[in-house]
């Protein structure tokens, strides 16, 4: 199955749902619901509530995240919002403000 890439000059305002990986290099506002992985690359800006299996953030995210597997905040990323996932990784250099819930 192909990956979806939202290029850096694209702005989406609305809802994205799907069953395949999504790579965001542009801007998405609204809601994202996936059964696979979401990758917010360093140029990507997301203002959305996110529900996926995996999330990898290198860019900017504002909103709440729920992942059924893993959330990874990479170095240089910026995230404001709550994270709920069984596995959460925050790298050195990442900026984050919000709640973390790993079901401890």
């Amino acid at each position: 199955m192909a990956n979806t890439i939202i290029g850096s000059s694209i702005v989406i305002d609305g809802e994205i749902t799907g069953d395949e990986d999504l790579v965001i290099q542009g801007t998405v506002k609204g809601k994202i619901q996936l059964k696979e992985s979401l990758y917010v690359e360093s140029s990507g800006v997301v203002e959305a509530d996110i529900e996926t299996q995996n999330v990898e953030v290198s860019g900017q995210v504002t909103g709440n995240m729920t992942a059924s597997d893993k959330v990874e905040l990479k170095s240089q990323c910026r995230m404001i919002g709550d994270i709920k996932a069984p596995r959460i990784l925050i790298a050195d250099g990442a900026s984050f403000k919000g709640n973390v819930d790993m079901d401890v």
Partner: protein
Amino acid sequence: MADNASTIVGPSILINGNLQGDEDLTVLGRVEGNISLTRTLHVEESGIVKADIQVRNAVVSGVVVGNITASDSVEITDAGRMVGDIKAPRVIIVDGARFRGAVDMGDLDSPRATGELPARKVGSLTRTSAQSALPPRRPMPAPVRAATPVRAPGPITPAAGRRDAPIGAKSSEDETRAIGARQAPVLAGKKFKKKVVVKKKV
């Protein structure tokens, strides 16, 4: 005070109350109350801390219940378990760590500090001669979940095997081509859906 001064709370020790100081503290036992240090707190795998903590750096490999305020960094290692809030400009949570609480890194617009992190448990322990008296290190607890792939871009589930190229490889791709390629299957999917609906009506 010597620069490398360090206090160790041994595995059979329980401290209940306020703990204050200007040197590194390594907790192998149990501390309850308040901890206030101008240096680094290491909570080792056997260590349990139920306290509000104010330090420069904290490295959690054991159990912490309470809030941590650090002027530099807080790190939860793969063996660390923590429930409570963290306030520090640098917060690192590695895979395998368990944490529930709020994270506040302060002003997100200010550039992240870099510089060296406090030495991890191995480093902090080998410094001290008291180590020979300590029991051998506990083996790592069996991973509850599958191990993370080593920097592999894809998730670990078999379903993710479909991802054909690593993320890094994609960045140089022609965006317009990628978007065009993406539209085609979406449209096809819509047409297909419509057909199905029509069939049902007939």
